[in-house]
């Protein structure tokens, strides 16, 4: 891993009787997009808000850009940008004024006009915040998060509550930031978001990281959940298919044989050989690789949005 700009060690946070964060540890390298994936109430927002210096941790250590958010919050705030989950701006503030307003707080600042162009807000330059759509408000939130050319950008549920098309627009913007090698920490409960945008993902549940790694690593760890879905010309015995090399289970669903595989390549080879021997034919074959949702279900026994 290259130079680490963010290091969290055994972080804890409690609200009364509720243990929101129960000993989380992770590191984020410079230029990396790191995602905290988990259901609502998993402790993602508490974690990110401690990193931003908005909340005080109960225990553990945190360093962001070399600063402790609890004791060096003033210095830290010049180095980070954030799009918070539940936030707003005054209704009668114009888009361009909002950018100038926030630019005024920082030592280092980017040209507001450039950010308007980059985030597709030029046409809304003089519109009031109250007149913007949900997607435009979120794009403005991203523009404000970038106004100080931050070393680390925190995005807390950047697409929550937005429709699919607007969500994809936000993904494009984040992917552009990723290409620019901006260090990003984001929280999400959308699988697609984590898979598409993050270099590494930590799956969080009940205030703890269950597993972390690249989306590919996490899915590989759950490789026996790869499914091969086949249609055959003639009926076949489930038991015989289950006995094939590389196949761990087989079920029939609406005429489709679903083979659960630990080693998909071997399973396909042995399936083809078996069908030739039986003078049967493959009508169609689809491979469904496990998603992060499958990984989450495997590890927690629940769906992300349960």
């Amino acid at each position, binding site marked *: 891993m290259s130079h680490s700009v963010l290091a969290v060690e055994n972080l804890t946070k409690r609200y009364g009787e509720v243990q929101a964060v129960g000993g989380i540890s992770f590191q984020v390298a410079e230029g990396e997009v790191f995602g905290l994936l988990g259901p609502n109430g998993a402790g993602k927002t508490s974690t990110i808000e401690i990193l931003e210096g908005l909340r005080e941790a109960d225990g553990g250590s945190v360093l962001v850009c070399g600063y402790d958010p609890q004791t060096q919050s003033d210095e830290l*705030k010049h180095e980070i940008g954030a799009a918070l989950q539940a936030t707003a701006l005054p209704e009668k503030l114009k888009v361009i004024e909002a950018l100038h307003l926030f630019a005024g707080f920082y030592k280092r600042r980017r040209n507001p006009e450039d950010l308007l162009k980059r985030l597709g807000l030029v046409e809304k330059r003089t519109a009031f915040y109250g007149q913007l759509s949900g997607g435009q408000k979120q794009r403005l939130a991203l523009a404000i998060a970038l106004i100080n050319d931050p070393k680390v950008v925190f995005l807390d549920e950047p697409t929550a509550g937005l429709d699919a098309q607007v969500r994809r627009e936000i993904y494009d913007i984040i992917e552009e930031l990723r290409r620019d090698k901006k260090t990003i920490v984001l929280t999400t409960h959308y699988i697609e978001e984590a898979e598409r945008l993050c270099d590494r993902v930590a799956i969080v549940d009940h205030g703890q990281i269950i597993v972390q790694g690249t989306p590919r690593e996490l899915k590989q760890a759950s490789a026996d959940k790869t499914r091969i879905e086949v249609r055959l010309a003639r009926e076949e015995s489930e038991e015989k298919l289950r006995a094939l090399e590389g196949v761990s289970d087989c079920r029939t669903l609406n005429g489709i044989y679903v083979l659960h595989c630990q080693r998909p390549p071997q399973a396909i080879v042995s399936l083809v050989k078996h069908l030739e021997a039986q003078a049967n034919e493959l009508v169609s074959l689809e491979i469904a690789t496990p998603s992060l949702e499958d990984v989450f279900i495997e590890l927690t026994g629940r769906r992300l949005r349960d």
Partner: protein
Amino acid sequence: MTNLLTLTRMRVRLALRNKMFFFFSIVMPLGFFFLYAGVFAKGIPKNVASLLGPVLALNVMGSFWGLSATLVMFREQGILRRFHVTPATATDMLVSSILANYVLTLPTVITELLLARFLFHVPSLGNLLSVLLLVSIGTISFGSLGLVIASVTNTMQETQVLNQLLWLPLIFLSGATIPFTYLSSLVQHIALFLPATYLVAGLKRAIVDNYGPEKLLLILGSLTAWFLLTLFLSSQLFRWEPEARIAKKAKLYVAATAIPFLLLGIWENRYGRVIAQERVAVERLDEADRAEHQAKQRAQRQDANQPDQDDSDHK
């Protein structure tokens, strides 16, 4: 300092785009001015001068209302928490509120003074330096009271209730609406514990009796001490987060802000001159009215006698 100016500019800009601001900070104070000067004082210059202090005080005191409501609205809508993630501090947020409030209040006060001088022909506005000092310290200290209200209330509803509870005694017991001498002796002595009473009295003395700042030091000092206490308290109780609730115990800290005027009230009740000065001012005004009335009657009598003399001359 840059953060402070940036936030102050934003607050002024937002206020100028707010219809409610225009009504409560411009239309209503000027409406009060014309009611006092045109109706209560009947446009008579010396009466206008004596009511100018109360009308300016109403304008200055009213600022706490809008200030507390705006800050609570910012907190409830999650606007404050967005600023929390920037290098802006709680003190920046609080002081910018007071500065913006001052910048927005001063033009109305100046307009009222100019209208009194040139529309109602008040011969003298008294000691303008004292008026400016009282208006300035009054605006920032009552603004700071608004910040305390925003700090100790959890919802907009609570804020409005507390504003109402404070506003009524401030305007009815201070001499800003009901003349101080009309109040019963007991109420007058209670009113001596209110900052508003001293603001009204100070402005009257500065305008009518031409008091310089050196004669108003006690009032100016008490208002300044009150401002510092309320600002300190509000910075200690400031909350960025909408869900953050203030402990009931903390609400008792507000009692600490009463200390300057509790001490001044005790002193005034024992040795003070505010009540006596008010009586003298009213007597002087009554005397002037009587003298004017008598002069009018004499003139009428002379006019009535004049035709008889003219008739006898003809004869």
